[in-house]
C-alpha cells in the first residue's frame, strides 16, 4: 500500500465521518417532525431547511467556550475529543464493499471495533467527572453503569456472528455470509442493535442525559463547539452502530449486483437502520433507570446467551 493510497483512504473516511452524521441528523430532524405531524426545519438553505445543521454548526462556533471555574480544566476540554474520535477510528475498519473497499482491513477487526467503541463512553465519563456539577456527575455515572450492563450482551451477540463465520475479520464475516444467516442470527442482531442503542444513549435508553431530571447529564456544563462535538459524536455513533449491524447481521454488501454495487447495498442497509434508530426515538418513552438495568440483565443477556448456544449447535451440526 503506497503512501498516496493510504492518504486517499484516510481522506475518504474523514469525509464520510464529517458528512454522513450530518445527513443522519438532518434526516432525524425531518423524520421526527413528520412522525409528529410537523414540518421540521423549513427555512435554512431555502429548500426544506436542508442546511439547518450547517446553520446550527455556525451558531455553535460563535458561542463562547465556557469552562466552569471549579472544573478540572484539562480533562473537561479533552472530553469531547475522547467521545468523538473513537468513532472516526472505528469507521476506518468497517468494510463498505467487496475487493478491499475498506479504510484499513484489520485482521481482528471485530475485536478492534468493539474495543475502540467502548472508549467513546469514556468521554462522557470524563465530562461528567470534570464538570464539577452534581447533574453532570450523575449523568456520567449513569453512562458508566449503562456501559457496564450493555457491553456484555453486545459482545456476546457479536461473538455469535464471529463463531458462525469462523473469523474475527469484518470482511471475512461478510464474505462468509449466506442469506439464511439472517433468520439464524436474528436474535443476536436484535440484541446487538438494542445494546448499541443503549451505549449511544439514544432514546429510549437516554437515561444518562434525561433532561427532565438531570438537565443534560454529563454535557450540562458544555457550550459552543465542544457541545457540538458531543452531539456530533452521538450521530457518528449512530452511523457506526448501523454500519456494524449491517456488516455483522445483514450481510453488508450482499444483494443483487453486489459485484458492482456492493457499496450501495451497504449504504442502503446502514441508512435503513439509521431510520429505525430515529423511528424508535420518536415512538418510545424513556426507560426508567431500574427498567434500563433490568432489561439488560434479564432480557438481553439471556437472549444473547441463547443465541450463542444456537449458533454453536447449528455450527456443529452443519460442519
Amino acid at each position: 500500500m503506497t503512501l498516496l493510497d493510504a492518504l486517499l483512504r484516510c481522506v475518504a473516511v474523514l469525509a464520510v465521518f464529517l458528512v454522513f452524521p450530518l445527513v443522519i441528523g438532518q434526516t432525524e430532524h425531518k423524520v421526527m417532525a413528520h412522525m409528529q405531524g410537523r414540518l421540521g426545519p423549513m427555512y435554512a438553505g431555502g429548500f426544506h431547511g436542508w442546511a439547518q445543521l450547517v446553520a446550527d454548526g455556525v451558531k455553535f462556533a460563535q458561542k463562547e467556550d465556557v469552562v466552569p471555574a471549579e472544573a478540572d480544566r484539562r480533562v473537561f476540554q479533552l472530553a469531547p475529543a475522547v467521545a468523538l474520535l473513537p468513532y472516526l477510528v472505528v469507521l476506518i475498519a468497517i468494510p463498505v464493499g467487496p475487493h478491499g473497499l475498506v479504510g484499513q482491513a484489520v485482521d481482528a477487526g471485530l475485536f478492534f471495533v468493539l474495543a475502540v467503541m467502548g472508549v467513546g463512553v469514556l468521554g462522557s465519563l470524563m465530562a461528567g467527572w470534570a464538570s464539577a456539577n452534581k447533574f453532570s456527575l450523575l449523568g456520567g455515572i449513569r453512562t458508566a453503569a449503562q456501559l457496564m450492563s450493555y457491553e456484555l450482551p453486545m459482545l456476546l451477540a457479536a461473538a455469535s456472528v464471529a463463531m458462525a463465520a469462523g473469523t474475527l475479520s469484518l470482511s471475512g464475516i461478510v464474505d462468509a455470509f449466506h442469506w439464511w444467516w439472517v433468520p439464524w442470527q436474528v436474535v443476536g442482531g436484535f440484541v446487538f442493535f438494542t445494546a448499541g442503542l443503549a451505549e449511544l444513549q439514544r432514546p429510549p435508553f437516554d437515561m444518562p442525559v434525561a433532561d427532565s431530571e438531570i438537565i443534560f447529564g454529563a454535557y450540562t456544563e458544555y457550550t459552543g463547539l465542544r457541545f457540538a462535538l458531543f452531539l456530533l459524536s452521538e450521530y457518528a455513533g449512530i452511523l457506526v452502530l448501523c454500519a456494524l449491524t449491517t456488516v455483522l447481521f445483514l450481510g453488508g454488501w450482499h444483494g443483487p449486483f453486489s459485484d458492482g454495487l456492493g457499496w450501495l447495498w451497504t449504504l442502503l442497509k446502514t441508512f435503513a437502520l439509521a431510520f429505525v434508530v430515529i423511528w424508535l426515538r420518536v415512538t418510545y418513552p424513556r426507560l426508567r433507570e431500574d427498567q434500563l438495568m433490568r432489561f439488560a440483565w434479564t432480557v438481553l443477556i439471556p437472549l444473547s446467551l441463547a443465541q450463542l448456544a444456537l449458533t454453536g449447535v447449528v455450527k456443529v451440526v452443519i460442519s
Partner: protein
Amino acid sequence: MAPLPGRGLAKGLAVTLRTMTRRSVTAQYPDVQPELPPRSRGVIGLLEENCTVCMLCARECPDWCIYIDSHKETLPAADPGARARTRNVLDRFAIDFSLCMYCGICIEVCPFDALFWSPEFEYAETDIHELTHERDRLREWMWTVPAPPALDPAAEEPKEVAAARKTADKQAAAAAAAREAAAAPAAVSPSPDSAEEQQDS
C-alpha cells in the same frame, strides 16, 4: 385470546409510521395566510361617519380601553324664528388594544352601527404604548370588514327588508288600484282627464 406480548410496542411503531405518511398539520403562517373562520375577531374598526359620540361603547367597555373626546358645535337656526341646534363632533376615538379583551360588547352596544369586527390581526407592535390606535387607523380597518354572512335559505326575512317590502307592496297596490279606477271609466267613455291620470301614475 390474550394479546401478544410486545403488541403495544408494535402498535406504537405503526402509529408514528402512519403519521409520517400523512400531511402534516403545520400552518406556515408568514408565508401562507391562515384561513380564518367567518366572524373572526381580529380588530375593531370604526365607521366614524356613523358615530354620534353617545359614549355607550366607552361606558360599557369592561376594561375601559376606549377613549373618546368630543365637543359641541352650534348649527345656526334654519328659520329666523327657530332655535339654534347643537351637534356632537368627534375629536378623538382611540382603542387601547393592549387592554382590549375582544369581548365585543362595544360592537354589540353601538346603536348606530359605528363599530365592527374586522378579521385583520397583524398589528403587533414592539412597544405596548403603540397599541393604542387612533381613529384614523380604526377607520382604515373598516375597509377590511367583510360583508355580513348570508342568511340561511330558510331564515326569517330581515326586519328592515320586511318593512321596506311591506311599504313597497302597499304603494304598488295603491298604484294598481288607482290605475284600475282610471281605466274602468276610460273603457266606457274616454276623456282627456283619464289620459292625464295615466301619465301621472
